[in-house]
């Protein structure tokens, strides 16, 4: 079993969101970077759990990004995984990134795991694009993943619940909460990560289908209207008459 886990770098969840260059770029000054939580907590940890059950499993981590993502890749390797590959490019169009991943994924991986989305662009697109480029199956928003030979049993989110489904390998899965629990790397992992192979490859030629024109911040809230705790009836009245939501 060979698993490819896609890892991306995102700003820390507490990072201040501001824009530079006339609102065309995310202002990176002072921003701490983390592994996208969905990639780390769910996709990567589930892959590690599968390897713990079957030690012959091989896990490769894949990042499409510049050299500045290497600390993030090492951090992921400290959690687990045998080696990492970085495709050396900084373009942010989903199709372009998916094309890079597909070029690697077609070299004999059974399972390709991604997070359900990145917490910066919230595209939720990469896994689906990779699966179409490879013409293989895709199960998105999975909350559970079990292997039985060449079949995978998964739970995925549906409106108001979950459904259980079965799919053959090879398969692309986007992972979310429920799949695994967050782990903290231990000292052995951190030491070991330093010597694990991190291969850098150059990107393939691929199209760019979209481009970001500008960013904007949402309008600020007018300020909270406080209601006395002794008179919740006033809240009901305001929600009905002023906010018109009930």
């Amino acid at each position, binding site marked *: 079993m060979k698993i490819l886990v896609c890892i991306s770098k995102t700003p820390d969840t507490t990072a201040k969101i501001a824009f530079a260059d006339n609102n065309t770029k995310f202002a990176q000054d002072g921003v701490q970077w983390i592994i996208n939580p969905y990639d780390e907590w769910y996709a990567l940890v589930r892959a590690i759990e599968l390897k713990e059950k079957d030690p012959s499993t091989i896990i490769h981590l894949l990042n499409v990004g510049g050299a500045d993502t290497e600390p993030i890749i090492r951090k992921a390797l400290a959690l687990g995984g045998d080696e990492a590959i970085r495709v050396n490019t900084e373009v942010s169009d989903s199709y372009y990134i998916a094309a890079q991943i597909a070029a690697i994924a077609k070299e004999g991986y059974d399972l390709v795991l991604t997070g359900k989305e990145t917490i910066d662009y919230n595209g939720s697109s990469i896994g*689906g694009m990779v699966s179409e480029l490879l013409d293989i199956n895709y199960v998105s928003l999975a909350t559970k993943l079990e292997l039985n030979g060449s079949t995978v049993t998964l739970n995925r989110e549906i409106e108001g619940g979950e459904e259980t489904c079965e799919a053959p390998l090879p398969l692309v899965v986007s992972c979310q909460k429920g799949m695994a629990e967050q782990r903290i790397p231990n000292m052995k992992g951190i030491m070991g990560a330093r010597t694990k192979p991190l291969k850098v490859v150059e990107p393939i030629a691929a199209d760019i289908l979209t481009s970001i024109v500008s*960013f904007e911040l949402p309008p600020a809230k007018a300020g909270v209207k406080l209601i006395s*705790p002794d008179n919740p009836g006033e809240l009901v009245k305001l929600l009905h008459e002023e906010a018109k939501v009930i």
Partner: protein
Amino acid sequence: MSVLIFADAADGQIKKSSLEAITYGVDLAQKIGATASALVLGKVTDDLSALGKYGINKVYHIADEKYNQLDARLYTKAIASVVSTSGTQVLILCNNLTGKSVAPRLSVALKAGLVTGASGLPDTSNGFVVKKAVFSGKAYANIKIPTATKIIAISPNSYKTVAGEGKAEVIAAVGSDIAPQVKVTSTQKVTGQVPLSEAELVVSGGRGLKGPENWGMVEDLAGLIGAATACSRAVADAHWRPHHEHVGQTGGSIAPNLYLAIGISGAIQHLAGVNRSKVIVVINKDPEAPFFKAADYGIVGDAFEVVPKLIDAVKQFKGVA
């Protein structure tokens, strides 16, 4: 020019979020001088000609039962073939589970630029630019789609459905002859509750509620106003509530008309998933709780005193007391 809206169904009926996508597609068609058609896959019980009342002229229907379960690869082949034969320039989907599974595949299959999680009609004054929430709702990005065919997946509950009069022509279409490979073996639905992703009203609880045994009042309040229930990550991590109720940066991202938060501090990661809500109400005993800064209405008080009183007030308002 023509706009095609892929409308997905559950239990034989077109989903509410897809009706929103239909209204969005019809408004877009009007804006760019195009016609709007819809595409439905699988057997349905709804009368599809009734989609005409949302402004749809034609409904393509592939009535094969194999589409009653989501197999993204199969769906992609069927939708892509209708896009090609109908001469569609803009394809609209809802950014729900189905949309998230098939829109990216269609982007590849049709070599069409895709914007997921769109929140408004495109700006066509200079190219074709679509606005979407990014950084988990902390900002918006305007994204240009320069390709000949374009795909937009709109956020659930970000566009209001408008119905009028009219009847659509239903055209039987054929899908591909490949067999499904992803097979649904069972479904686990939370019955009697409004699904969180489609809910217009949401009542949410945090660690301030002390334990799962105290959720009765949250459910009562939600039941009274027809709201879905949600919770903070701390609550889901403690297994007080199921995972799918967790909202925030690393849980569900929602944009209901009303988000009522009880005993939630309003950490930046929590706000990220809910700050697109139209109206936010916060009940918290700490006047310094960060959530009040993001709220429209607030009550500083102990939830165990305030919420029962609020339930009484709602009952009175609804005339069920």
